[in-house]
């Protein structure tokens, strides 16, 4: 029953997206207005199909319908309901359902948002592109990664449940959906970029349309990546949160190009420049999400985070190739129109800083991509088995991060067009003083190492700059000084500084030890004391049997690091226990459980400063992104986006200027 609903839903989705794409194509190419209008409505059956497919799968998981192969492999009677629900995206085929659900959801929002402009070819082509992408993902569920396969032969009576590491922490319910909201969110700006190339309207119109989409997608992606880091920190047991693992890098690559795009788009808005570059960034960001999906699911690179291998690899790789081929072809075709009329007056200016920013982010992305796929390249060239891990990435990215922190400090104070030394000196004075004071204070407190000192100092510099901007803005506009792109951006910068500082602190000042303690014995590390109180074996939970150690930290609460055997079989899984405070985290693991209750146990202990600030910084970035998306008051009414309407009146209005101005400028085009 569930299999039937699911399979029918997937087929309906595929047919609807193909039919919609076809109808729109006919409407656009043959100038057939009815088709153009009707084509959009296929978004609704597509979304319904995705919803039904998701519901069918969830129903299968919740009712233990083991006739579905996916449920037989990833569901189980002993699995708690919470993890049954998240089981939908705990394995490869189900994760495609989640992706498609989010994609069709975004498409519906897009169709509704632009319903008044249905006859604008830009919107038409963009919708068509999203339909094609949706068709691809529906196709994945029809053939290569069908989640609704039924078990042939006897129906099993129980299943192993999801992977143990995916059913022992609630973050499994947040990280994948957030991450996908980010990845999939970039499909819309991508669609508009392709549409602008096809229609030849490569001016600023499409950029302005998609600015908020990109901001939201970027925000979700940032939160998704940070949640992933937090989750692996809580669950994997090595005390780290970022290992430059191929899957982690795969999610990081679109983030890097997306961040570059968010900045350089401002140069295009103001100076009409960098059209080709911005288009390339958007196209690259989407392509990298597909490449990342391939790397995560094809098994060519080993990773703790990878899905189990399946035959989906070649299909995804082909789609990636197709996307790049089409976009490169379109750019080559429209090459002449992409010549930007503007130029930059001086490298020491806001534009210059953004260009440097883009150069650095491009270098960052290049390093990450090269390092990630290099083992495969080396193997292909002369069969060398070369691994590339943290030592390489840390060394290569450190200078880039330092340079980016420096840019974060001076870019907000640089004016557009040209800066004078006098102006710079004046604006940068307080942030620079703050920076030097911070470094001196750190050295006085005993901090050592060039990397952390530079990070702390430049972080203070950047924070000072951002703070200065916010103070000036609130002085001028009161509470509105926190809202709008520039101010929200400064808050995001503050969040990034917090994360960078926390990153440097945890990497440079961690303390680790492994001790064997008898019952009642204590050990101290970096000012924290742990006392081993005893072991509880055979602790029964719903889905696992755990051996839990009772450890008291700092004569306070008792924590329970454990080693668990999950009901579904497989190897045992260790679960760390963490005490987080604003100052540092005490992270304990049960390394070796004693065979008899009175025997000593081996406890691992890691003390890292400022870990919690990584997640707090993420929260600040999220708040900043939301504030940046808030419509701010337009300061300059003669900006390109608020050109007069066809009837001669200006679209400028106080308070609601931004959205009003934009649609005003473009609806002038619908009267044809």
């Amino acid at each position, binding site marked *: 029953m569930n299999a039937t609903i699911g399979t029918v839903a997937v087929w309906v989705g595929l047919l609807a997206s193909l039919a919609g794409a076809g109808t729109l194509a006919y409407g656009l190419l043959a100038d057939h207005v009815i088709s153009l209008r009707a084509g959009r409505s296929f978004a609704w059956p597509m979304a319904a199909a995705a919803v039904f497919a998701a519901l069918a799968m969830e129903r299968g998981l919740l009712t233990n319908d083991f006739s579905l192969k996916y449920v037989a492999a990833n569901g189980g009677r002993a699995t708690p309901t919470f993890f049954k629900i998240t089981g939908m995206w705990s394995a490869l085929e189900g994760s495609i359902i989640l992706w498609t659900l989010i994609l069709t959801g975004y498409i519906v929002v897009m169709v509704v948002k632009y319903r008044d402009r249905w006859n604008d070819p830009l919107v038409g082509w963009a919708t068509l592109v999203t339909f094609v992408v949706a068709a691809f993902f529906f196709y994945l569920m029809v053939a290569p990664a069908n989640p609704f396969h039924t078990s042939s032969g006897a129906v099993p009576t129980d299943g192993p449940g999801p992977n143990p590491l995916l059913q022992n922490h609630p973050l499994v319910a947040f990280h994948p959906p957030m991450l996908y909201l980010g990845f999939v969110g970039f499909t819309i700006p991508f669609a508009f970029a392709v549409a602008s190339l096809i229609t030849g309207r490569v001016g600023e119109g499409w950029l302005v349309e998609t600015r908020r989409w990109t901001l939201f997608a970027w925000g979700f992606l940032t939160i998704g990546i940070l949640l992933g880091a937090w989750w692996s920190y809580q669950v994997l047991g090595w005390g780290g949160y970022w290992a430059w693992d191929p899957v982690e890098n795969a999610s990081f690559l679109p983030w890097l190009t997306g961040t570059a795009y968010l900045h350089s788009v401002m140069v295009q808005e103001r100076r009409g420049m960098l059209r080709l570059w911005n288009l390339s960034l958007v196209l690259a960001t989407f392509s990298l999400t597909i490449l990342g999906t391939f790397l995560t699911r094809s098994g060519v690179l080993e990773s*703790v985070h990878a899905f189990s291998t399946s035959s989906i690899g070649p299909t995804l790789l082909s789609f990636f190739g197709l996307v790049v081929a089409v976009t490169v072809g379109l750019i080559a075709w429209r090459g002449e129109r992409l010549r930007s009329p503007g130029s930059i007056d001086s490298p020491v200016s806001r534009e210059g800083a953004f260009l440097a920013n883009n*150069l650095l982010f491009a270098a960052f992305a290049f390093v990450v991509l090269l390092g990630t796929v290099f083992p495969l*390249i080396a193997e292909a060239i002369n069969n060398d088995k070369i691994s590339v*891990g943290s030592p390489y990435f840390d060394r290569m990215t450190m200078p880039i991060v330092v340079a980016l922190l420096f840019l974060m400090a001076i870019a907000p104070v640089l004016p557009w067009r040209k800066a004078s030394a006098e102006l710079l000196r004046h604006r940068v004075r307080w942030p620079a003083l703050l920076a030097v004071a911070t470094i001196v204070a750190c*050295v006085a407190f005993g901090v050592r190492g060039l990397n952390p000192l530079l990070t702390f*100092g430049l972080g203070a510099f950047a924070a000072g700059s951002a703070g200065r901007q916010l103070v000036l803005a609130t002085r001028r506009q009161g509470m509105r000084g926190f809202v709008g792109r520039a101010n929200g951006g400064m808050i995001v910068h503050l969040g990034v500084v917090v994360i960078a500082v926390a990153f440097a602190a945890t990497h440079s000042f961690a303390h680790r030890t492994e001790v064997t303690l008898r019952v009642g014995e204590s050990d101290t590390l970096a000012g924290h004391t742990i006392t081993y109180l005893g072991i509880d074996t055979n602790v029964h939970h719903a889905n696992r049997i755990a051996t839990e150690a009772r450890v008291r930290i700092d004569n306070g609460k008792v924590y329970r690091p454990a080693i668990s055997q999950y009901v579904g079989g497989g190897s045992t899984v260790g679960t760390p226990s963490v005490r987080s405070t604003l100052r540092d985290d005490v992270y304990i693991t049960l390394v070796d459980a004693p065979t008899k209750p009175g025997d000593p146990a081996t406890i691992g202990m890691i003390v890292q400063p400022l870990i919690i600030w990584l997640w707090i910084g993420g929260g600040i970035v999220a708040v900043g992104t939301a504030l940046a998306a808030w419509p701010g008051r337009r300061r300059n009414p003669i900006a390109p986006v608020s050109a007069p309407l066809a009837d001669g009146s200006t679209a400028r209005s106080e308070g609601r200027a931004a959205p009003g101005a934009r649609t005003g400028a473009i609806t002038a085009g619908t009267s044809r």
Partner: protein
Amino acid sequence: MQTFLRRWLLWLVLAVVLVGALVIGATRTSGRPTTQQRVRHITSQLRCPVCDGETVAESNATISQDIRTLVQQRVEQGQSDGQITSYVVHQFPGTLLTPPASGVGIIVWALPVVAFVAAAAGLGFTFVRWRSRAGVEVTDADRALVEEALRR
């Protein structure tokens, strides 16, 4: 000279203080690393041969534990980091997480630097080109064109 100093005095002082603090902070030593720290340092540069992308330092696989014990023995015997690492890597090829700086490995170290320098140079040339292109005369025909567009 006087005005120069007055304007830049603060900055010169800041620069001196900054460099001084950085030098002190960067060169101060933390004492000799303990055995555990050395073992951790060496094993975090090695990939666990049987796991999915964990380092020997993090992994709980049997062979990783064995390698950690081996490294600890050798550290206590007085061998250097380099000696121990090259022994393990020789026996278990492909486990060193830092790609070699010779042979094919050169690509992964040099290519980003080369690409960055090339891109920066390209950007520099573009700036120069923009500067030299700056001299565009505004003619009456241009003015008329702009007025027409604004009127529409």
